[in-house]
C-alpha cells in the first residue's frame, strides 16, 4: 500500500475571526492526519506549522481559501540520547551557517529520533552523514 511521505506545512493568514476555524475544518473534513501543530501570532498575521502527509490537493485548496502555504523538506535521524550528541549536531550545522527551521524530537529508549527542516537540506544531510548518522528524507506516518 502506498503511503504518502510526511512534509512540513507552514501556513499564514491574516488575523481575522473565522480563519483559524476554516483551516481546522478543512483539515478535519479531508481527514488530514496532522501532527505537532504550532501556532503563533506575528503582527497582524497568524502562522501555523504542522506535519502532515504530502497532499497537493490540500495545498491547492488552502491557496484558494487565501491561505499562504509553504512546504519544507524534512528529514530524520536517530542519535544516542546524550547531550553531547545534540550539541555536536547543533555545532556542526551552526559552523556551516545552516539555519534550523524546525525540529521535532522523540526519545525512544537510548535513542533520540529527530525530524529536522533546515534552510540547506542537502548540505545538512551531507554534514550529518559525516558525523556518522544516517539521515533519511523518507518519513512516513
Amino acid at each position, binding site marked *: 500500500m502506498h503511503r504518502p511521505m510526511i512534509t512540513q506545512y507552514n501556513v499564514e493568514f491574516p488575523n481575522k475571526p473565522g480563519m483559524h476555524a476554516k483551516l481546522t475544518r478543512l483539515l478535519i473534513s479531508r481527514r488530514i492526519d496532522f501532527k505537532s501543530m504550532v501556532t503563533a501570532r506575528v503582527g497582524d498575521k497568524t502562522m501555523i506549522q504542522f506535519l502532515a502527509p504530502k497532499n497537493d490537493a490540500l495545498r491547492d485548496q488552502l491557496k484558494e481559501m487565501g491561505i499562504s502555504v509553504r512546504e519544507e523538506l524534512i528529514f530524520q535521524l536517530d542519535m544516542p540520547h546524550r547531550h553531547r550528541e545534540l550539541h555536536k549536531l547543533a555545532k556542526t550545522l551552526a559552523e556551516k551557517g545552516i539555519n534550523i527551521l524546525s*525540529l521535532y524530537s522523540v526519545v525512544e529508549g537510548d535513542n533520540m529520533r529527530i525530524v529536522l527542516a533546515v534552510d540547506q537540506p542537502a548540505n545538512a544531510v551531507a554534514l550529518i552523514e559525516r558525523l556518522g548518522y544516517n539521515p533519511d528524507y523518507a518519513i512516513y506516518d
Partner: protein
Amino acid sequence: MNHDKPARYNLLVKNRPGELLKLTKFLSDAEMDVSALRIANFGASASIEFVAPRACVLPAGFRKNRIE
C-alpha cells in the same frame, strides 16, 4: 525544591544559525539531557521548547549564556 523534577522551557530566539548551539552548549557543559525538544520558526523569530531536569538551575545559566 526537587532539582530532578523535569521542567518545560520555551525560549524565543532570533531565527538565524547558531541559536540552538547556545542552548546545547549550556546543556552539554552542564551534562543535562533534554527529554523533549521542539523548534518552530515564525518569520524573524523562532521558539525553542524543551524539557530538561534540574530545572531551577537553568534560568541563571540562560542569562549567563545570553539566550534571549
